[in-house]
């Protein structure tokens, strides 16, 4: 085994957080630079990881396997094409969050940054765990820093939102924990690679799938367990919203691919209609709800639910296009929703209002902001030439292959998406400048400009040239689908022999 690169990715932000714990609280500049430096180094390591990564094979790479609870659970981590992009997304978004705190976090900056760094460690851990128990630990531990971020640095109703967020997600996850324990008793291991080979007995799959689903559905979030998200976003500070939208929501999408499809193919086949229906409801329903929002953050939060509806839809088409599209959509949504929340943050820092009707006519006061906001608006509604388009298009293509009706209904969501995003932009940026307070606000400062452009570049780049993303995930997805179909066939053959 070579240098444990994945473990160092996981541990490095925590080390940074430890440094922060021992630094002086009121020395905000040092604190910020330590955090920024740590997360930036982590980003460089993850890029190096991408360079080293071999996309032509689908087995797990950079695997580390250490005994943790003797003879019971191993600390096993590794990555394949599906997980690496999420790791890079995490390491890319975290420094951006840290830069963004400049204007928004006024109290206990050090503690805030510690939360963010620990969050980064845990999220990277989620995406490279190869053991169910390890996965569960990372997955659940991530709740704590997020709970604190909302509960301490949030807005007026922060406590309500923080508890809603925590209880909602915990409730789902408890069932997942039960499922993990029963998997251990059924198969004798919680090692994902071994479980992939062994397969899980068909008669248990449905229940186990539902238990995992209850956790992932809340985290995604899927209709009807989505109501925590708008509240959490509205109350969370900008950086918290960014982390939540960009990465936390993606853990569930990743979980669906890795566990629901990978471990329970038979159950996935059974429950596909359920996922389709919930996804379609999410797409249409939340798009319509988003249309009527008066609060910018709430609007974007509801649009996230609709976008994640596309993701879950794409995953359960079990087609190459659908799953590729879902992953690209998740990456794209990670970048775009992060940028949109930052955009809201920019005007919130200046006006302390998230209400749409506070604004209007911004383009004549802060033109640079308006340009970037427009770019991300267009990316959010999936304009060709932005990453949003690639994901949505592939998902719909995959859906069409599987079921015409589903594809037709989901495509309707694309129309609503254009409506609510453009209407938001129009009301905030165009029109007459009626609120005189807006006249005084300054345009983007350097750090805001820097982070927004940093997000804009990949959005455009992958919009025109998604090849690097597709190359990375292609083989892993192909293999996953093969394994899925193989298991389904094996089972149907067994059934026919028994009869």
């Amino acid at each position, binding site marked *: 085994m070579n240098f444990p690169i994945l473990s160092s990715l996981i541990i490095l932000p925590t080390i940074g957080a430890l440094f922060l714990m021992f630094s002086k609280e009121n020395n905000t500049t040092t604190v910020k630079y330590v955090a920024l430096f740590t997360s930036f180094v982590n980003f460089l390591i993850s890029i190096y990881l991408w360079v080293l990564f071999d996309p032509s094979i689908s087995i797990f790479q950079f695997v580390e396997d250490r005994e943790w609870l003797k003879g019971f659970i191993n600390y096993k981590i590794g990555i394949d094409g599906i997980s690496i992009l999420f790791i890079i997304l995490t390491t890319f978004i975290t420094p951006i969050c840290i830069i963004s705190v400049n204007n928004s976090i006024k109290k206990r900056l050090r503690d805030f940054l510690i939360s963010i760094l620990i969050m980064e460690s845990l999220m990277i851990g989620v995406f490279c765990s190869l053991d169910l128990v390890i996965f569960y630990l990372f997955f659940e531990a991530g709740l704590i820093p997020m709970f604190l971020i909302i509960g301490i640095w949030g807005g007026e109703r922060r406590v309500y939102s923080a*508890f*809603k967020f925590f*209880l*909602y997600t915990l409730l789902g996850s408890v069932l997942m924990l039960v499922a993990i324990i029963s998997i251990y008793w059924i198969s004798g291991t919680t090692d994902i690679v071994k479980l992939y080979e062994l397969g899980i007995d068909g008669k248990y799959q449905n229940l186990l799938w539902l238990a995992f689903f209850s956790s992932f559905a809340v985290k995604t979030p899927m209709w*009807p*367990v989505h*109501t*925590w998200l708008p509240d959490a976003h509205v109350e969370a500070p900008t950086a918290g919203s960014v982390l939540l939208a960009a990465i936390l929501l993606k853990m569930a999408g990743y979980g669906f691919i890795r566990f629901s499809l990978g471990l329970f193919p038979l159950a996935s086949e059974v429950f596909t209609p359920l996922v389709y229906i919930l996804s379609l409801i999410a797409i249409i*329903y939340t798009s*319509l*709800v*988003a*249309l*009527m*929002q008066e609060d910018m953050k709430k609007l974007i939060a509801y649009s996230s639910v609709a976008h994640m509806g596309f993701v879950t839809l794409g995953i359960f088409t079990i087609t190459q296009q659908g799953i590729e599209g879902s992953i690209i959509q998740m990456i794209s949504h990670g970048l775009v929703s992060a940028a949109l929340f930052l955009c809201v943050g920019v005007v919130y820092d200046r006006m302390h209002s998230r209400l749409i009707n506070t604004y209007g*006519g911004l*383009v*004549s006061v802060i033109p640079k902001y308006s340009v970037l906001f427009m770019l991300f608006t267009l990316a959010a509604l999936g304009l060709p030439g932005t990453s949003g388009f690639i994901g949505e*298009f592939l998902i*719909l*293509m995959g859906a*069409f*292959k599987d079921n*015409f*009706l589903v*594809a*037709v209904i989901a*495509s*309707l969501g*694309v*129309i*609503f998406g*254009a*409506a609510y995003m*453009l*209407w938001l932009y*129009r009301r905030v*940026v*165009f*029109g*007459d400048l009626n609120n005189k307070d807006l006249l005084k606000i300054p345009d983007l400062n350097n750090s805001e400009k820097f982070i927004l452009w940093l997000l804009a570049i990949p959005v455009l780049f992958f919009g025109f040239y998604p090849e690097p993303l597709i190359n990375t995930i292609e083989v892993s997805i192909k293999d996953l689908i093969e394994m899925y179909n193989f298991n389904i066939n094996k089972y149907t053959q067994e059934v026919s022999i028994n009869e």
Partner: protein
Amino acid sequence: MAFWFKRETANAAAIKAFVVNRVGDFGFALGIFLIFYLFGTVNYSEVFASIPQIIDKELLFLGIQIKAIDLICILLFIGAMGKSAQIFLHTWLPDAMEGPTPVSALIHAATMVTAGVFLVVRCSPIFEYSPVTLNIITVVGMTTAFFAATVALVQNDIKKIIAYSTCSQLGYMFFAAGVGAYNVAMFHLFTHAFFKALLFLGSGSIIHSFKDEQNINEMGAVYKKLPYTWILMIIGTLALTGFPFLSGFYSKDAIIEFAYLKGSTTGYYAAGIGILTALFTSIYSWRLIFKTFHGSYNNKKIKIEEMHESPLVMLVPLVILAIGAVFSGFLFKDLFIGHGDYTSFWGDSIKFLSPLSSEHPPLWFLLLTPTLVMISIPIAYYLFVKNKELPNQFAQLNKPLYNFLVNKWYFDELYNILFIQSSKKIGLFFWKSIDVKIIDKFGPDGISSLIKTLSIKASKFQSGFIYQYAFMILIGFSALLTFLILK
């Protein structure tokens, strides 16, 4: 379109254009998905090559048994309808005139809006195998041509008139493609680009001279003040209406002729509607000219002495376009639609399943359209300069019809009720009633308050008074005893 971002109407038009086009894209994307589903590729040459293999294939689509090829074509055509503003998806184009006039000339007259026509012609190897869709295209095309022309007759905004005229001409292009004369559709697309861009930029010159006035009732009698614009606008109008030997004459008359030669019922209908629409086109175009340049001067804000011709930088492009508007038809007609030798120009790029008819329609038919077009000039002059009361009286007498046309057949109002208001209402209902009143009330909030109530009740037992505990013990003990004895 939202260039004048302070104008509410401009912003609304921008969103409307985007969303209506999204509706078209919805069909277009599904068409692409279906092609990918059937052929595993979306490459033109590969798809075109394998079309003949699936002609008889049938699909079950949303519960309807339909031929795959028909479905592909209908879905692709929905995309074309959105982009080329055909009836039902046309509402965005007139509103798009909120944008700057050069944009209108380039995007909404000459280039972008014709992309739908281009799509149909480009995919002629697919459409040729779907007679059903071709008939639909013909009907939609001629309906649009007629509808837009009737609306243009009564509009007062100079750019809106030209916009509806564009809509109408696009209808012509579609029904040309629908009757199989793809090359004629392309020819009309080509000539139309010249004269319609000319008319738009010319109207821009007029609007500029009138200091941003767009209502033709506020103009008039300025042909001496704006001589170049006047002449150039007349050239554009002559070309548009199909006055003999100008570009529109060759392309538009060819469309009507080919529709007639098609020989089918839809073909005859299309030809008839085409001729009627040509008459309307001529009347509304001359109405525009007479109301802006002739008659009496009606603008109250600017004195007529202050009127002046636009600068050279605005006139030179008009001259260049005018040259195209005059000569492009005559010069290129053999290349595009010359009898027999059009295939040498188009090669394999357009597929004709059966070659176009090389017959000639009867002479009376050939003369009909140009005659109507020429007669309509004096009629329009009489109606809009000499006896201006007559059209007003006619409008007064037929108030419902007039309102129907002025309000553009009430499409906007209908869509507003059907789609916009209802979407908003449903959205509000989902949010306020389902999210808040059901999911949250019975979900997280409900459960947490339930637990709270229960725990308050439970905590009442921990009162701290010994006698209460002793009483509870007594009750428990006697209950247990009773149970054991009775057992």
